[in-house]
């Protein structure tokens, strides 16, 4: 989930540095696909490996839709009520992450 758009990496990819936005990282191993939700971070692709350094990551199966929906309503309210830019930005970040989490669950279904 690159900040400028999602992208896939296969062997022999050109070295890339990308910032990550909240979203799902899929790891394809043979036929198996593992899905992890990352809150943000960086992805480094070199000639030998792709490293994903996430600030926070959790398997998508661990996400709970009820808690997320609660969070979304709380953060939407906080964004609307925010007094200054800093509070607004912090609440906006929370909102973005939770909305992405919801998409991750509903998209995966």
């Amino acid at each position, binding site marked *: 989930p*690159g*900040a*400028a*758009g999602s*992208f896939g990496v296969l062997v022999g990819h*050109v*070295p*890339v*540095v*990308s*910032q990550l936005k909240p979203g799902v990282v899929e790891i394809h191993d043979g036929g198996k696909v593992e899905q992890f939700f990352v809150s943000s*971070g*960086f992805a*480094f692709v*070199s000639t030998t490996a792709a*490293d994903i*350094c996430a*600030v*926070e990551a959790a398997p998508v199966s661990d996400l709970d839709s009820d808690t997320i929906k609660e969070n979304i309503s709380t953060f939407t309210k906080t964004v609307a009520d925010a007094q200054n830019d800093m509070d607004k930005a912090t609440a906006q970040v929370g909102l973005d992450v939770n909305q992405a989490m919801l998409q991750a669950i509903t998209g995966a279904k």
Partner: protein
Amino acid sequence: MLVSALKTGVQAAKNAAPVAASSVGQVRGKATQRETKTRIEACHSVYKITKAMQSIANAKLNPAIARMQESRPMAASVRAFIDTACSEVQVPELEAGASCLVIPITSDKGLCGALNTKILFKTMNTIQDLKEKKMKIKVITVGEKGHKNFQSMNPKMLVHTASHFGKTDINFLQASRVAEFVTQTPFDQATILYNKYINRVSFTQMAHTIPALTFFSEQVSKFGEKFEFEGDEEQILKDLAEFQFAVQLYGALLENGASEQSSRLAAMDNASKNAASMALELTQLFNRTRQMQITAEMIEISTGAECCK
């Protein structure tokens, strides 16, 4: 609380009059017997405290090692990227008068063996080297022990301190907060010093040098040759600079935390053994003098009885 109780116990053991080598025929009065008894009790309480601290350190050590090992790949990958980038792009040689930030990582609590003295020694050496190159040096200590040391020895260099946050497990959020705090002081080069955990009985001092945060943004074009950037290069590099600083600090904090527990475990283990052996010696001395006293009294009584026959 434990530490102050420990100090009182040790004080009691020291305050009692020194024990003269027991010689045959010397009678110790009941008063000095009492002192020996006090010393024995002091040793026992010291033993209990150090044993408790040892088991606490033991309990904390394994989770600390686990968390440190989990974080090692992330810190390594960020550093690998920085190293690759820096090898392609020349890190500018520091000119005299450049501002250097030295960040030693120490523990908040004491009684952890040589952990803090070793890292502070290395810090002093680093500062000495930088002084010879005529750099301006500022120190930000992480941890109370470092703070106290610099306050008494070099208060002018000490700019800030970050401490008392290791009570809950160290997480990335705390590390980012500390990183944000540290980067408010602009620097041309930062050096993070910490104890790297090797195994349960050893750790070694490491120093990582990090170029100024602006270095990344300044070298946008050079980075662009080596890597493809998804998105706005300048913004990415700016964020990356802050991110890598936080990640390196996080790694250093975790390594130092694991080293702290292992060092405390070894130190308290030693202290317990010493307290136990001291208690044993004193108890034997106490019993010997008690028996000698009884023998002396019996001789008195029997000679007295002889005389009165």
